[in-house]
């Protein structure tokens, strides 16, 4: 099925009243959680997973897509009005956007962020529409070694890119990998690392780990260092929406931001930090008003915000076509697919065409919904920040218990919640990135299957891993990712050391 027919079919699914309703629920919840502290899109989808038993898959994924996009919008609203970036992707927005709000130009900042997000989201969705089918076609000729190399690359880039320290990134990844091997080995039926506990035979539940790391870990961390300042709301002094000048200064950053965000989001390295940062730097260099940067330049809001949203759309490309998650949110979406017995990848476009195209079409719908919903309602969303913190965090813990206890009513899961929750606390205190744990947990077992398949085909010859052009290139790139930064670091430290030595002499 080509992209246009697929998309038309998708719209016929997405525009059904009940699916429009789910898209609305998703975007509404997504925006609310984007505004609230302590919960992000990944956690929300994880908490909603048990509900999927009673909702059909298409409706569920339309809702999840709404949550994904909505959370991005919510994040930008609080960054601009309150200077509290909820996630790393909206740090750059807060930089300029909050300055604009302080000058009474909050409405214009919100406007350029919202329209930029809409433009980027729509172009990104167009990218998914036309890129995903050919990639899925291509994926049919992928051999196990190609998949293995691709996953290896995803592991490496996730641990290297996220967080400040590579060693800590890798420890987080290997922790996830070690949790991923728990359970019955599917090829031989032998128990691995179950320590004789029957509840562990099915493996460690992704939802339990994710909810414990994010919700319980965050609750412990914030409770121990709680310092609540009443949000200092910059008044939306109405009226001053985007002027003609604002439009003129915004449209190019929107497009450039999308240009950074979508491809980088679609790469196995993924992530929203790099494209938003790149976009900010480029706009700063290209602007005709360099004096305004740091004091509320509209380009500095328009570009990064577009990049942020385009990256979120880009992440869906490897997820849908190859079954490769590159962010925490994508990992939990993959778990949701598996809950329904669906495996994202090339076959999904054939076996569940209605679902995939309905999901893609609902991204267009959701984007438009967000634009209409959010611009007039920004003031209302911000009110959410005044929820008393004791009740907010207590509520988050109860929802977590629904998510964890609802999975299988297992005492082991509750013990894991306390244990992994403490781990999540430690990881925040000592600055370990959290996403690699989840990627390792969900992608580790898949990588192992591909590795064993490749070796079985290659009759045990390890050179099978570089036997196709693609696998050879990907392995080479992985090695480079590992070696180049180390080399650069080594050269830099040498350069710094040398003057010290001469000074010593």
């Amino acid at each position: 099925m080509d992209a246009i027919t697929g998309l038309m079919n998708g719209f016929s699914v997405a525009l059904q009243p009940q699916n429009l309703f789910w898209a609305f629920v998703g975007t509404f919840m997504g925006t609310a959680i984007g505004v609230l502290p302590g919960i992000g899109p990944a956690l929300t989808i994880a908490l909603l997973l048990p509900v999927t038993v009673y909702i059909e898959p298409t409706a569920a994924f339309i809702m999840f897509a709404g949550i994904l996009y909505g959370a991005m919008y919510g994040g930008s609203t609080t960054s601009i009005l309150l200077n509290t970036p909820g996630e790393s992707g909206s740090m750059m927005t807060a930089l300029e956007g909050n300055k604009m709000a302080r000058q009474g130009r909050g409405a214009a900042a919100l406007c350029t962020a919202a329209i930029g997000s809409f433009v980027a989201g729509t172009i990104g969705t167009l990218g998914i529409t036309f890129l995903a089918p050919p990639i899925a076609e291509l994926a049919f000729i992928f051999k196990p070694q190609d998949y293995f190399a691709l996953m290896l690359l995803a592991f490496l880039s996730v641990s290297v890119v996220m967080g400040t320290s590579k060693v800590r990134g890798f420890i987080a990844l290997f922790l996830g990998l070690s949790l991923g091997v728990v359970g019955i080995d599917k090829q031989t039926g032998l128990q691995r690392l179950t320590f004789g506990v029957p509840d562990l035979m099915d493996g460690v539940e992704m939802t339990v780990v994710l909810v414990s790391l994010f919700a319980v870990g965050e609750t412990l961390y914030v409770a121990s260092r709680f310092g609540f300042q009443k949000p200092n709301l910059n008044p939306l002094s109405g009226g001053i929406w985007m002027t003609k000048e604002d439009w003129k200064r915004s449209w190019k950053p929107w497009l450039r931001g999308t240009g950074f965000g979508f491809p980088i989001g679609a790469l196995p390295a993924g992530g929203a930090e790099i494209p938003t940062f790149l976009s900010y730097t480029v706009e700063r260099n290209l602007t005709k008003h360099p004096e305004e940067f740091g004091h509320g330049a509209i380009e500095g809001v328009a570009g990064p915000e577009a990049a942020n949203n385009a990256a979120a759309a880009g992440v869906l490309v490897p997820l849908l076509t190859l079954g490769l998650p590159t962010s925490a949110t994508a990992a939990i979406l993959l778990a949701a697919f598996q809950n329904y017995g669906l495996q994202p990848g090339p076959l999904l476009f054939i076996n569940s065409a209605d679902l995939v195209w309905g999901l893609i079409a609902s991204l267009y719908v959701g984007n438009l919904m967000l634009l209409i919903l959010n611009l007039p309602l920004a003031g209302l969303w911000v009110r959410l920040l005044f929820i008393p913190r004791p009740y907010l965090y207590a509520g988050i813990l109860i929802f977590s218990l629904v998510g964890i206890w609802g999975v299988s009513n297992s005492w082991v899961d509750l013990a894991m919640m306390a244990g992994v929750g403490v781990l999540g606390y430690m990881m925040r205190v000592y600055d370990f990135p959290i996403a690699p744990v989840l990627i390792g947990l969900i992608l580790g077992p898949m990588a192992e299957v591909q590795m064993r398949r490749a070796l079985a085909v290659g009759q045990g010859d390890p050179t099978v891993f570089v036997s196709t052009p693609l696998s050879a290139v990907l392995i080479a790139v992985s090695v480079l990712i590992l070696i180049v930064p180390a080399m650069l670091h080594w050269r830099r430290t040498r350069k710094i050391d040398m003057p010290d030595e001469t000074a010593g002499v």
Partner: protein
Amino acid sequence: MTERPYWIAAGTVGWGAIVFWKAAELPQFDQYAHVGPGFMPSAVGLGLVVLGLLLALQIYRGVPFEEQGAEDVSEDHKVNYMALGLAAAASALPMLTMKPLGFVITCTGCFVLVAAAFKSRRWHLDLVLGFGFSLLCWWLFRKLGVQLGGLLPMMGV
């Protein structure tokens, strides 16, 4: 912060050693796939041990550990151990009470403990709010088909 948390490195090495030791009991290679069920866990365990040692080396060299930022966190990152203990108690409570006392009572307890950790002084109000909220969640998610167990399992309800 010039803290030297060697115990994290020790924990990483320790967990890696446990994984490696358990994996060593499994066949590492087999006839058909050439790589047996023990291979991957062995590799992961070994990797963790190596990474733990690398972390120890970094700690020895004085690598800084900066706490992650989060919303609602005080700017000086001053730790209130009382609040941390209350929140940790809330996350451990379900292990004790979920089976005998059921979802609603457990969640009410968690709600009161977390609210107390966040310096809520009106614990009577917290109790009522927590109970109402837990009951609502229990009822709503049950309607949606999520199995959350009985209202009071000890009494067989």
